[in-house]
């Protein structure tokens, strides 16, 4: 049934595009959870849905296979210097933009300089800060050409100089911030180069139509070096912000893939669409920030420990979230490369004992029936966050804790907790790239994302040491030690690890669950597709 309606709708969508395509064209219809901010990668706002579109139309030096592993893309191979600080990428000869122009190292230099140009005001520019002078360029302290990238051999080779050995650098290059930009097109059209009439891209697909807030359509890029191996003729990305409506559209056969179905629907989907319902671990942590600023009850380690002890994470993941999350006992999620999952001490096992211990700690901290511990819990408005907040308040109740819950829309929520007006606050982090350091900076002193203002000199020193360590095993040991320092300090309440939740038409292949939830359409094929 799904297959049938897929071709039918594919044909309908194409005919509406007025493309001269055969009626049987294989078009993949993906429901994404929001609107792309821009095809200019420096202007993207950071949604998962945005990387889905961008990774289909652009390709970096390194790209991803269906399993989410980094494999050569625009670069065929690269050399790393002894000190691990210089990378030399050799670009493929047959790399072309969709207008037939060759992709050169110049396009990368241009793209990265554009990203780091203060005038571009790119939100995610900091992801390229490992490159020499990148931060200074972005702050306007140095000119654009001071950036540590160089085009050599008539644009066949790209030399990148880093500030420090950065083992995850190739990983980082799969992110859209590291894509090239078509220098020739930008020079010809200026800011208008992103318009559908002007845009050229170097990925497997190239954009053809954008109905703002409804649909982006891309068609196979005939100039793509591997075009013969690309099975799909095109992809439609439908903006399905209402995720329940997305499920209806998937069931009606209008979508082949629905990204991020709501967690509350997992059980129902598993029972009713077992073959289409995917759920798999993701590199993301859902946690409660504890405010360690002076004067807050949570500045007291005993309170922080007690709150952690009685958190029944299994109940949370299996009962309340009905299996649509994994229970978490650490900040860095499993699946992180070169890293073993750590475990907060004493927060699992016999509940009665944990409760007794926690009560004891609360009493020692000076709280009791006539002086109850009152906590201000803040979360950003969402059904998931609400459910979790209610459950946590109920779990802390036996300690005599009185929780006052406050929700706000996301912008207000984050502004408020950054100002420190809370005791406990909901936060989450999805990895930008697969490395433990990306999570551990969340507790580094003075960092903006460290909402609870956790300040531990030993922790910071360990992270500094890790940053300058080239040996992967030594680096891992340092990072793990750092995390344990924070966990022993009960610096936060780890609650859940994120999972990827997708509905996928069982008729397609080349679409695989992976921890970063990246699924390039380039690999996707319809089963009986020829």
């Amino acid at each position: 049934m799904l297959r049938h309606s897929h071709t039918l709708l594919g044909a309908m969508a194409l005919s509406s595009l007025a493309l001269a395509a055969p009626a049987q064209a294989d078009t993949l219809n993906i429901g994404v959870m929001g609107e792309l901010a821009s095809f200019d990668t420096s202007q993207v706002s950071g949604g998962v849905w945005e990387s889905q579109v961008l990774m289909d139309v652009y390709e970096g030096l390194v790209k991803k296979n269906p399993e989410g592993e980094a494999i050569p893309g625009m670069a065929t191979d690269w050399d790393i210097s002894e000190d691990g600080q210089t990378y030399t990428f050799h670009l493929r000869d047959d790399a072309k933009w969709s207008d037939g122009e060759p992709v050169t190292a110049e396009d990368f230099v241009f793209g990265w300089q554009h990203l780091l140009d203060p005038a571009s005001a790119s939100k995610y520019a900091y992801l390229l800060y490992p490159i020499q002078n990148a931060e200074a360029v972005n702050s306007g302290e140095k000119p654009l050409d001071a950036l540590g990238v160089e085009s050599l051999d008539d644009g066949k080779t790209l030399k990148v100089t880093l500030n420090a050995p950065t083992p995850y650098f190739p990983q980082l290059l799969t992110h859209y911030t590291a894509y090239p930009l078509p220098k020739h097109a930008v020079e010809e059209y200026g800011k208008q180069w992103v318009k559908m009439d002007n845009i050229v891209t170097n990925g497997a697909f190239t954009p053809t139509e954008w109905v703002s807030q409804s649909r982006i359509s891309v068609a196979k890029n005939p100039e793509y070096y591997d075009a013969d191996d690309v099975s799909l003729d095109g992809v439609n990305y439908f903006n399905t912000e209402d995720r329940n409506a997305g499920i209806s559209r998937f069931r009606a056969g209008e979508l082949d893939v629905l990204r991020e179905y709501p967690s509350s629907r997992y059980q129902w989907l598993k029972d009713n669409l077992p073959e289409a319902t995917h759920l798999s671990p993701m590199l993301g942590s859902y946690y409660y920030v504890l405010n360690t600023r002076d004067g807050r009850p949570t500045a007291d380690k005993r309170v922080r420990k007690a709150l952690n002890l009685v958190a029944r994470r299994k109940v949370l993941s299996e009962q309340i979230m009905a299996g649509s999350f994994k229970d978490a006992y650490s900040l860095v999620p499993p699946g992180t490369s070169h890293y073993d999952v750590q475990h907060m001490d004493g927060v699992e096992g016999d509940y009665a004992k944990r409760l007794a211990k926690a009560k004891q700690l609360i009493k020692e901290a000076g709280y009791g029936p006539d002086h109850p511990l009152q906590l201000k819990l803040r979360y950003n408005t969402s059904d998931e966050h609400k459910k979790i907040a209610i459950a946590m308040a109920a779990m802390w109740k036996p300690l005599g804790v009185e929780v006052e819950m406050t929700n706000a829309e996301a912008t207000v929520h984050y502004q408020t907790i950054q100002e420190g007006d809370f005791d406990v606050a909901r936060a989450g982090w999805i990895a930008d790239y697969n490395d433990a350091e990306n999570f551990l900076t969340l507790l580094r002193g003075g960092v903006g994302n460290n909402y609870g203002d956790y300040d531990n000199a030993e922790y910071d020193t360990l992270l500094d040491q890790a940053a300058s360590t080239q040996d992967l095993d030594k680096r891992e040991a340092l990072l793990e030690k750092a995390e344990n320092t924070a966990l022993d300090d009960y610096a936060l309440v780890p609650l859940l690890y994120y999972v990827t939740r997708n509905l996928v038409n069982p008729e397609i292949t080349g679409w695989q669950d992976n921890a970063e939830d990246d699924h390039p359409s380039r690999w996707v094929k319809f089963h009986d597709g020829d």
Partner: protein
Amino acid sequence: MLSYTLKRLLTAIPTLLIVITISFFLMRVAPGGPFDGERQLPPEIEANLKAAYHLDEPLPQQYLRYMGNLLQGDFGPSFKYKDFSVTELIAQGFPVSLEIGGLAILLALLIGLPLGIIAALRRNTMIDYTVMGTALAGIAVPNFVIAPILALVFGVLLAWLPAGGWNGGALPNLVLPVIALSIQQIAYIARMMRASMIEVLGSHYIRTARAKGLSERQVIWRHAIRPALLPVTSYLGPAIAGIITGSVVIEQIFGIPGIGRYFVQAALNRDYTLVMGTVVFYGALIVLMNLLVDLLYSALDPQIRYDD
């Protein structure tokens, strides 16, 4: 009448200026900014962003800059949807919202008015109770409940119509959103029409008309319906402005590229330029619709005159 219309159109200018000014400052003193999100930005990046959007200038200066651009017809670029200007977004989305909303209003009038009139004429009969009971159900069930049920039943279970999508405005894609949007309006209009019909039918001059020996049909068509339309008209002015500018619920559930979502999304994202764009647009529509309503009053009841 012409001079009255011209006068009203002239007063629209100061009215909109006040709306723009209040909205601008209201929006800017509200907490939360366009760059507050799950991830805190490094200070130099925040500085770049503020400079790029002139948010680092004093507020009055930003206001003057905005007004200056506005006078040249420039609403500025959207903070969030960067490949489009605010003008482009509204120009792309409004025809879609107008189509869906216009059809919904039309449907609501075509069904709601006759239902209301019939219910009033057959007052306190089974017909009246059935019509009003159905109308009430339409009011009691909010559209965020109706819309997903329609999509589920007609899109998934029966598979008669698409469960969502716009598809360039193809007829099958219009049906469900238009119905979902009109149900509540049908109910409102029917309820109001019934009430004012009853009011008018009991009034002195209808009794006079009857006493003159006019047939019931003549009484109703010539004398009752027009004055009875007055309260419905009052309601419809602002209601139409609201409906043709789209509904965030309907647009999100059916994936329709209208402008309704901008009213909520832009505010949630603190997309300042887009918020102002929607405010100016909506404000102008409100002024226009209320002017039309006032002009219609005189058409419905020739005794109404504006004497200033």
